[in-house]
């Protein structure tokens, strides 16, 4: 590096001075630019929510918080929300782990079908499960009637069940990719040396997975307490913060109390975020998007096998049944009430525009998000400027940010001139970019840690400009991180309701919001058919993306071998 600088200085004429300056300081310039973006689109909206929760018509006040904590109702709402988050996270982790274990270590024939069942609901809106549960187990549901049961689906239990089913796929996806990147040799040699399955799980697999599990836990907890569809449909009289926040903002336009509710929602998330960081301190990253290694099927002892098979069967079965109900419901006017099979739900094209919009928003968000994610990761790992840790913390804080907060934040921050962004595609896309940024950034960081800076230095020494080095060396290495960020943003943006619901405007309806409205209105057939269309289109998109990324991964790995 030093020699490079020296030679650069010796050669420099006045004309290329600017160029050299740029080359030498590109990282810092980039960092400054990215920081501005983060400040503007992430910190500013959060600050806007905080300020709104503290400022009444006559200056700063704690009155709104006092209002919150002095009312039993809100207090109960908070407890319910946290309890829901905790139960949900725990159950999702256990089931997600069992599913992932079976699809990566279990018998071959089970792997593919289990994987498909676990992943398909990921692209359907989470509140779909509330719909299916009402059709099956509601007070007048098909199963309830058939068995003449008397139970109450509306309430805490119903919300927990539907929300858990909704987030199993996310848990599965995250745990499966960490399991895949875990080299099975370690486990296999332990097995060869006579260690029992339980011992291997306890002493090797789970400890090695801990960082991944922890990350999954954090993500699920944050998503689950913010996603309000299931709670709004099945909650009955049981209060939860997310739907309350929604009513507070959209029904009563009480932005002060709405902000208080979302700030209260952030607090536990931030706390868990810091605990998570503390626990991971000094531990090696095992992340999403690692190198996948297929593991041979293993003889699993009955002690492990039986509970795993039971849990897996129940979970996959429940997901499958709920999804099947939606599929069947899409062919009936109202499933359970009328009995003729119709195609009219599919021939109703009013939702086409919304589906198209959703895909547009998600695509734009995914591209921008993946690019910013990769650049941020680069700056964080390679930069040597003051405030690097701060940028890292801010860009990873997305993990701990409930969707409602950024939804309200964007509404508060960008709805009046000169910063008027509401109404249209960009506000929705940007919102998704900054909410889901963390995954891409983290994948990028872990990728960059895998390669030594010497390669880049060598490139610079040989006279390559910053851009050439970045394009020829850094980008190919980071491509998997780019894909990880892209896919995660694309998939979550398409189904998530919690933030965008505040930001849709006439002429820019999104599928997730539209399906929710139809569902709440009882147009179950239409809601189901729209969901099926959405799922189909997203599956096709994913297949195309997969094809492209496979091609390029091939290309980039070839480049890498050539470089070596």
């Amino acid at each position, binding site marked *: 590096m030093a020699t490079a600088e020296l030679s650069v200085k010796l050669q420099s004429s006045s004309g290329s001075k600017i160029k050299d300056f740029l080359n030498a300081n590109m990282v810092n310039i980039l960092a400054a630019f990215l920081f501005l973006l983060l400040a503007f689109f992430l910190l500013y909206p959060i600050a806007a929510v905080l300020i709104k929760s503290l400022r009444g018509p006559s200056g700063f006040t704690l009155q709104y918080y006092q209002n919150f904590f002095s*009312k*039993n*109702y809100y*207090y*109960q*709402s908070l407890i319910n929300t946290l309890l829901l988050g905790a139960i949900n996270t725990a159950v999702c982790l256990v089931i997600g782990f069992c599913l992932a274990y079976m699809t990566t270590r279990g018998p071959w024939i089970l792997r593919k079908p289990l994987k498909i069942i676990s992943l398909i609901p990921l692209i359907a809106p989470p509140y779909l499960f509330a719909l299916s549960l*009402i059709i099956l187990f*509601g*007070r*007048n549901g098909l199963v309830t009637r058939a068995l003449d049961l008397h139970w109450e689906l*509306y309430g805490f239990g119903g919300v927990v069940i539907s929300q858990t089913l909704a987030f199993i796929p996310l848990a599965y996806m995250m745990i499966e990719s960490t399991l895949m990147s875990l080299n099975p040799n370690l486990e296999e040699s332990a097995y060869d040396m006579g260690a029992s399955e339980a011992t291997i799980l306890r002493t090797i697999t789970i400890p090695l997975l801990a960082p991944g599990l922890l990350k999954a836990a954090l993500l699920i907890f944050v998503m689950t307490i913010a996603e309000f569809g299931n709670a*709004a449909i099945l*909650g*009955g*009289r049981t*209060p939860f913060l997310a739907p309350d926040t929604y*009513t507070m*903002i*959209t*029904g*009563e*336009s009480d*932005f002060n109390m709405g902000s208080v509710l979302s700030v209260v929602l952030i607090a536990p998330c931030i706390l868990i975020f810091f605990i998570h960081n503390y626990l991971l301190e000094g531990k090696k990253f095992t992340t999403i998007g690692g190198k996948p290694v297929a593991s041979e099927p293993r003889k699993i002892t009955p002690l492990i096998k039986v509970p795993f098979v039971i849990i897996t069967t129940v979970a996959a079965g429940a997901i499958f049944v709920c999804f099947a109900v939606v599929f069947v419901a899409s062919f009936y*006017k*109202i499933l*359970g*009430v*009328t009995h003729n099979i119709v195609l009219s739900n599919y021939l109703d094209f*009013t939702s086409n525009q919304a589906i198209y919009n959703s895909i*547009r928003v998600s*695509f*734009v968000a995914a*591209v921008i998000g993946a690019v910013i994610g990769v650049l941020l990761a680069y700056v964080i790992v390679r930069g040597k400027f003051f405030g690097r840790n701060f940028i890292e913390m801010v860009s990873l804080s997305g993990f701990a940010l409930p969707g409602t907060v950024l939804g309200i934040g964007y*509404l508060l921050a960008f*709805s*009046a*001139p000169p910063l*008027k962004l*509401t*109404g249209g*595609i960009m506000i929705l896309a940007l919102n998704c970019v900054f909410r889901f940024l963390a995954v891409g950034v983290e994948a990028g960081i872990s990728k960059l840690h895998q390669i030594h800076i010497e390669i880049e230095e060598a490139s610079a020494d040989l006279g390559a400009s910053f851009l050439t080095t970045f394009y020829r060396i850094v980008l*190919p290495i980071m491509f998997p991180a780019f894909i990880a960020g892209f896919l995660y943003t694309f998939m979550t943006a398409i189904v998530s309701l919690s933030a965008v619901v505040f930001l*849709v*405007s*006439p*002429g*820019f*309806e999104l599928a997730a*919001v*539209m399906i929710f*409205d*139809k569902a*709440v*209105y*009882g*147009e179950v057939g239409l809601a189901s058919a729209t969901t099926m269309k959405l799922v189909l289109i997203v599956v096709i998109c994913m297949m195309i993306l997969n094809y492209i990324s496979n*091609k*390029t991964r091939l*290309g*980039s790995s070839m480049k890498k071998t050539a470089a070596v």
Partner: protein
Amino acid sequence: MKGKFIAVAVAAIFSVVLAGSAMAEEINAYMGTSPENNVKIVNFIKQKTGITVNQTFQSFGEIEAKVKAEAPNFNADIIVGCGSPLAFMAQKNGWAVPYVSSGWKGVSEVFMDKEGSWYNIANFSFVLVGNKDRLAKAGYSMPKSWKELLDPKWKGEIIMPSPLSSGTANMMRFAFLALYGDDAGWKYIADLDKNIHHYTRSGNAPTDLVGRGEFMLGLTSDENVKKRLDDGYPLIWTVPDEGTGYDGTFALILKGTKKQATAKKVIDVLGTPEFSALMAEIGYVTPRPAPNKLYGQTLPKYIKIDLGKAAEDRPKNNDLWKQKFRTEFK
């Protein structure tokens, strides 16, 4: 090479995705009738004027909140379908563009503002719906008066919308207050609360939930009942002896719109007899008299209501409602 090709392809898709929207005469609207009725109205306007109306469905309450939050920089050009509180508020605060429409000539003044700040495109009321099958199974008959709903046998079997998010529920609350007077009115609402299973977000949702048999009885907006009956829900409906309340469905042009000419054309077409006929067909009571699909020739008995006062009292009543029903967790 391959990488470059993909980069170009992605960039191309990206720009196509970012661009792209039609060139025809368009207008953005907040529309608060149900999603299916919104579509009917949009299609009608398209057919009669060629104007494409972009809309997202939101309930009356939500539109009100949104407009309040956005004022005075609205994201829509026009409202087609909001409740009286917002219509009166918009008139008072100057959020509406006054326009005296020739298309509304001859309509009774009850349905339009003299200066043309708002137009009432259709009145709706609330009715009591019951699930035939569930009632028969329990051996109960349909209640004939609102008072009968207080019978403990209905506990957990009645569903109604929440006045915090639904304009229909606001109308119900105000109708009961007008019927019984403030003190007895609030007592009635509190007693009724003991039998209510939960409060839904939108004013139409109870029709569906009762239709599917999730609950036996529902207080619900009348406009969608006809459609649900036609769809085959085992529903029975009635207006109890004391009568029902009513509210308008208002249309107005939002200040700051760059599409005033288009907006005026939309207002004009909403005043035509054909439009009244469409709304009456759905089940509304319309500015130009047309046979109503739900009620037929004889309109139901109405409780006398002062819409202006109802609008003014709404925030106060919301606070009171929250104090009574949302302070303690039940």
